[in-house]
């Protein structure tokens, strides 16, 4: 299973969030490809970079994940999704999402490889 640390070493757009889904970290690749400045995105919900039609499902799924055993269908394998840019355009991208538990809290991180 790939760790957040390993994910961070990839030369791909990277984003990390806390257990509430609040963005805590993005890398330069993410900033340059998707146009978000750190001050735009850090401290905001991950929902900001998801298309509208994913937002409800994201919140519901995220909430359920936290109440469960930590298993999820979306973790640890590549997913083709869309990422919303700062200019609200959407870019097809391959997401690889991982989650790690540190004590009582969860951390989430993902690489978002653009496919266009």
């Amino acid at each position, binding site marked *: 299973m790939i760790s957040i640390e390993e994910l961070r070493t990839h030369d791909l757009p990277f984003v990390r969030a806390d257990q*509430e889904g609040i963005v805590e970290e993005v890398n330069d690749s993410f900033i340059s490809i998707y146009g978000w400045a750190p001050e735009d995105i850090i401290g905001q919900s991950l929902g900001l970079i998801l*298309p*509208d039609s994913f937002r409800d499902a994201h919140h519901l799924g995220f909430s*359920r994940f936290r*109440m469960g055993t930590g298993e999820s269908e979306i973790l640890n394998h590549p997913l083709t999704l869309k990422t919303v840019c700062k200019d609200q355009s959407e870019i097809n991208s391959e997401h690889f999402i991982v989650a790690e538990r540190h004590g009582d809290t969860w951390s989430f991180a993902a690489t978002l490889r653009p496919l266009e």
Partner: protein
Amino acid sequence: MSSEHLTDQLRNTLGRLEAALSSVKDALVLTNLDGVVEWTNSSFDSIVGRTRLQSLGKYLPDLLPEHYVSGKATRGDQLIAQAANGAGSENWDLSLDPPRRVQEVSWSPVNLLPNPSLVFVFRDLSSITQAQDEIKRARDNLEQEVFTRTAELQQARDEALAARNAMGRFLSNISHEIRTPMNAVIGMTDLLLTTELNEHQGELVHTIHHSGDLLLKLINDILDLSKIQADHLQLRRDRLEIRALVQECCAILQPSADSKGLRMEIGVDPEVPKLLIGDSLRVRQVLLNLINNAIKFTNHGYVSVQVSSRCLDADSERLEVRVEDSGPGIAAEFLPSLFDAFTQAPSAGEQPQGSGLGLAICNRLCSLMGGRLEVSSQVGVGSRFCAHVTLERFHNEASTDPGAPKASLCPVEAPRILVVEDNRINQRVLELLLGQLQLSAEFVNDGEAALERLQHNGIDLVLMDLQMPGIDGLEATRQLRQLNLRQPYLVALTAFAFDQQKLDCQKAGMEDFLSKPVRLPDLQEALDRYHLWLQTNPAPSPQQKNVVTAPSVRSPLTSSPAT
């Protein structure tokens, strides 16, 4: 409450909601107003064969399987438009070929601003529909089976009725065919027995006469059974003197009992009313049959006839006749079929006697008279037959008295008789029988000749055969009754013995009815009735038509044929 805590609570609520909605069996999907999928549950993922992430952001109709509504392929675009307009539902067939796969689709808009959405629920009705289809098929099959079976039963019933009617016609015809020559055999031997014969000749003629009687009885039994089975037997309402009837029957059979050395015991309970009303002929038939059987099958000991009765109500009396014998008895296993037609109890080392119709007829006659026939028997001890019949109580002797004694006859002139008969032998028999009564007659061969002769008057009494070539007896009677002349007294002669023939004769305008073969006593009685009629109809006017029999005269036209 801190915002952190509140967020935790909201997360919990959302998580539970997600888990709950994903666990329901119905497939749920949420879209925006354009039909773009925003959320699905596990059941929906299963029916479209995609993960939620693969469905999110897709146009819902693009995810749904091909489907048909009322047999027509339906586009999903309509579904989104319908849902945006309001709640509704419809059933989708997922295939046009069996087995049916059916989904009930229901939808509703969720008008929450700023993001109104549409919710769709898909419920699998395949199992229910298939079960319903199975029930419908079973019902259709059952209906078809019932229809087919009903048709078969109707056909069987029609065939049985046709067979019964054919049998009735056959019996009627064969009865006629047999009775016509029997008329000659019995009539001629009757006459022959009045002549001087030597001992050998007498024995031969007696044998012929006895055999003729037996044959005639057999024909009458078959006709009786046939009439009862076809519901054609009409019971008469005669005045019945039970004691006299029992005495008469026992007297008739006493010689047979004497010849076998049997003791006859007769007892009539004092409570039995002196007079009752019923069919004397049929009661007599039952009595004679039971007593005759008892004598026939008993070789030593006794035959007992005991009669009792009890009042049922003000109008009816239940008569019970017990005929008991000390004969060989009947085996228990044979008793249940004893009253079946053409059945006789097997007697050790003896040939069956009779046709086996007697008890079957008695049983049916008792039923017809509102009662039943019962038997109990013990091998080596004897048998007991109990005939129960319901008879009317006799109330007022002064009222219209069925079967009142005949008025006394006054001497009258010999009637001028015309015999209408196409059969030369029968003409001769009648000529000889009338001769025995010191009467003579004119003879014609058919209805035309009869009408021709009757127009010249001078005839008082006509003996009219019914079956003749050309104008038959009934038609000749109808035409005669239309003529403006002095109407004679008409007596039908027929070898047919069904009540219907009597009714036809009465309708045609005949006064009386004689069944062939005509016996001398029957002819004498018919002449007696004619004389009685004369007393109440001394001079029929020329206009008088369809003359009816006087009430006091018992005409066979209102009763069963002589047997």
